[in-house]
């Protein structure tokens, strides 16, 4: 039998492009918008689409319909409101502190932590204030994992840790005032359940009056007397979200992905009062993982 010449190779049809990723933003604030922009940059504009709930819970259904009609099967929920949709199974949430009390991890495909790693934060803090010996926090109920994480970091840093649980803003204030005699520094956590504008001011004023170093989660709180603010970087959040998307798409179990960087902003007036010494390395520390 004569061998037939081999038939030319038939190229496989290109795989279909992956479906776009929806990005639902709870409301238009800088912290959320920056993360949404970073995500779109990485995903590409053609592979992402941003939806803004505008702080309106009733807009969630409409947004989901829009996503469904757009063929979007997976989305990123930025902020608490976006993360309170009925079906989070295909969602990755970020910028949410109270995921634990709300049980978001059980509902969603995964999440990215809101706050930068506490080890990094403590490293920055201790670099600024080596005399720091005890730290206190007040938070609402249901934050056991968060507290454990913070406690571990603080203890590993050789400091004392004091935590109080409060159920209201006034209770938080009272708890803070009772902590003050036992702590050098206070870590204000962004638990909306126990913070009100008045209480935030009271805590800042009381803490300042009693010479306590207060670390806050928002740059805008620095003028109230905080020593420094430590916040996440939008790119870092976006990277972690995209990595988690890839892993969960590949079948990994849902997890809370930690952040890898921290952005530090200092209040020099308060720092000088505490004789804190911001060094050139602080900015380096601020960037280093």
């Amino acid at each position: 039998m004569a061998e037939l010449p081999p038939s030319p190779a038939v190229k496989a049809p290109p795989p279909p492009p992956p479906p776009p990723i929806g990005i639902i933003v709870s409301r238009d604030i800088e912290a959320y918008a920056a993360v949404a922009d970073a995500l779109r940059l990485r995903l590409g504009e053609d592979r992402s689409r941003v939806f803004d709930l505008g702080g309106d819970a009733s807009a969630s259904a409409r947004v989901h319909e829009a996503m469904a009609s757009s063929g979007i099967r997976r989305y990123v929920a930025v902020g608490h409101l976006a993360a309170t949709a009925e079906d989070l199974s295909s969602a990755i949430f970020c910028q949410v502190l109270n995921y634990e009390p709300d049980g978001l991890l059980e509902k969603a495909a995964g999440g990215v932590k809101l706050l930068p790693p506490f080890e990094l934060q403590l490293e920055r803090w201790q670099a600024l204030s080596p005399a720091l010996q005890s730290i206190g926090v007040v938070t609402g109920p249901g934050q056991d994992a968060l507290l454990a994480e913070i406690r571990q970091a603080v203890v590993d840093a050789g400091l004392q840790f004091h935590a109080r649980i409060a159920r209201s803003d006034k209770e938080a204030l009272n708890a803070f005032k009772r902590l003050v005699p036992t702590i050098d520094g206070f870590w204000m956590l962004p638990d909306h359940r126990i913070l009100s504008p008045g209480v935030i001011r009271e805590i800042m004023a009381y803490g300042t009056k009693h010479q306590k170093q207060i670390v806050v989660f928002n740059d805008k709180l620095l003028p109230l007397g905080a020593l420094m603010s430590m916040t996440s970087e939008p790119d870092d959040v976006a990277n972690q979200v995209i990595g988690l998307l890839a892993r969960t798409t590949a079948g990994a179990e849902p997890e809370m992905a930690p952040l890898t960087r921290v952005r530090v902003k200092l209040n020099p007036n308060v720092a000088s009062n505490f004789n804190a010494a911001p060094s050139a390395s602080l900015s380096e520390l601020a960037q280093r993982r």
Partner: protein
Amino acid sequence: MRMNRGESDDRSIITALRERLAALDAAELRRRSHSHIERLAGRLRVVYARVHSGVSGLRLRGLRRGSKSSAGVRPSPGFLQTWRMRHGGKRSLVADILLMQLVFALFVSGLAGVGLWWTSSWVIEDNLHKWGEKWVSELDVIGGPLYVSEDEDRFWQIEDYVSNFTEIDFVRFYTNDGQVLFEDARNVAVAAGARLGVASFDRLAAMLPEDGSMLLDVPDTGGSHVRIGKPVWSESLSADDMLGYDPEGQTETQRQLIGFVELGLDFSSYQSRLNRSVVTVSLMSLLVLLILATSSWLVLRRALRPLAELQQPLAELAKGRTDFTVQSSAHHEISVISEALNTTVTALKERDEKLWQVANYDPLTGLLNRHRFLEILDGELSEVSRSGLAHALLFIDLDQFKYVNDTLGHAAGDRLLKQAAQRIKAALRKHDVVSRFGGDEFTILVRDVSKKQVKAICRELLKDLREHAFFEGGHCFSIPCSIGITMFGNADHSSAELLAQADMACHEAKARGRNRLEFYQTSGTEMGQIAADINWSEKIRSALAKDGFVLHYQPIAHIETGKVIHYEVLLRMQGEHGRLVPPDAFMPAANRFGLMSAIDEWVIRNALAALAKFRIDDPGVCLTLNISGNIFEDSDLPLHIRTHLEANKLPADAIILEITEQVAVRNMVNARRQMGALATLGCRFALDDFGSGYSSYNYLKRLPVDYVKIDGVFIEGLVDDEVDRQIVKSICDIAGAAGKQTIAEYVENSETYDLLGELGVQYAQGYYVGRPAAELMPDKLPAAISGARRKRRAG
């Protein structure tokens, strides 16, 4: 008598003053001379009385007596009266000043106290409210967890917090449906009585702002307890607002009303402490005020002491003593008063001395005057019984003095008197007393002398005067005199009797040829005359003092019309049993004892008063008043008359002053001056007894008379005596040419009346026209002259 006129060098004034003073007794003189001192002293006495009453009027016993009453310091009913009576009903300067200061201080203290109490109460209340608001806010924070947890530790925290403040009565936390969640009460009763109801909760929630609280009263506690209610809110931010929260921006929060907190406060302790403080401060202020008042009283008293010390010299001054000097003061104001007082004292001393001189010495001769001589004589009489010495009283009358005076004039007469006085004085011993008794009369008290000795003295005196050459007007005169002597060695006779004796002896010397001496020889007739004169002088004095004189009025008719508008005032004395004594009986004694001026004054005063009453019925009636020469020596005569005219609201031309020609001539200088002043006032004058005596037409030209009264001696025989008719006619013609009107006296029948009208006499007075009577009697009018006589005169 005016003090400033005493400084005048006018001899006539001094002479008038001398005579006037001679008629006054010593007490009267002193009273008049120190009247102005008393006015000044009186004013300063008022000041002193105030000072003195201020010094003694604040005696604490009055206050202590009042402080025993249950209502505090309250004077007994008699205290103020007693105090006022002690100080003559006048207010005390020191008391006034102190009272003013005290009232002001009490007012300021009271105001300050009230202000302090009110302000402190307000501050306490306000502070407590503010504390309460702060506490309730703290409790709101502390108690907040009560609403969301069952943490029992919260209860202890709340109790611990509350226990720090004693002002907190209770604190109560409510749920929002009004149930009491927790209560901590110190004052259970107050807490139980004040519970908020649901309506209150709604109101608090609706009215109060976010962190506001409301003040609520607690009933039945007198305002010493208050409540503060506050809603308890729970607030939180939304989860998505945390990362973007801007403290400077507007951020919506979620608020939830979870309950109420109620705080009860008690500031009664502050109130009672404040009240105690106010009471304490008030009491201390009162004590300080009392101390200040006492200090002020002492300081004022001390400060006003120099003023009070002026009282003694003022009292001395008021008594008429000027033999002291007021000490100067260190204070300017008092020093000014002291200097003024010293100046016044000095001036008064000088004036006293001048008055003494004027009152006791004759300005012309420098000898003692009549008044002073009588005082010395009286003093000697009071001593003579004790001393047992014999004295002599001499009465000297210059012979021929009238001749010199009338011939060479008054100035020459005065010079004669002066030279005579010098000669008399030179002839006497030092302890003898000589005076110019009046006119050309001198009296001498020769002490401790025998009859023989006094005779020798008198002979020497006669010789000196007789041999003295008085040169005047180119002529040389001697000065013979007649001397009457009466001896006395006891007080059996009064000074008036002794003078009368010496005067009688002098008359005897004159009767026996003058230029001789005669001793008084006692006789029954003479004694009786002396006694009578003295008796009359006493009666005159009594009548002057007790208005024992009576005025009668004799009409003067206008001959042509028959109208009576003038009446001559005639003096009578009320005698025993209603009998009226005519002036002839008592005038000589009045003249002798210097009572004429007093009688003139009495007549003027009473006549003008009567004239005022007469003019009610007859507005045109006038009175003619007889005045003696003595009154012309009163420099204040025009003032006296004007005073009485004004007091009785009479015009000056309602009176006509009648003087005799002799009086006018004897007192020509004074008469012209006084008459001129009175004429300027509006008074009119009548010259009485014209035709007898001097009858000098020159006086008609020189004296401002309006009427000439023709002496009755020419009227009585007018109808039968052609010479009288010619005399009367010539008097009328000359008087008419001189612008005077004529009045005829002693008209006793119609023929005389008619004839006077024919001769040109304007007025008639006499029994035919009307007799003197106690009231005016215009009813009885003489018939007007017949028409025939009127025609004859006109023809």
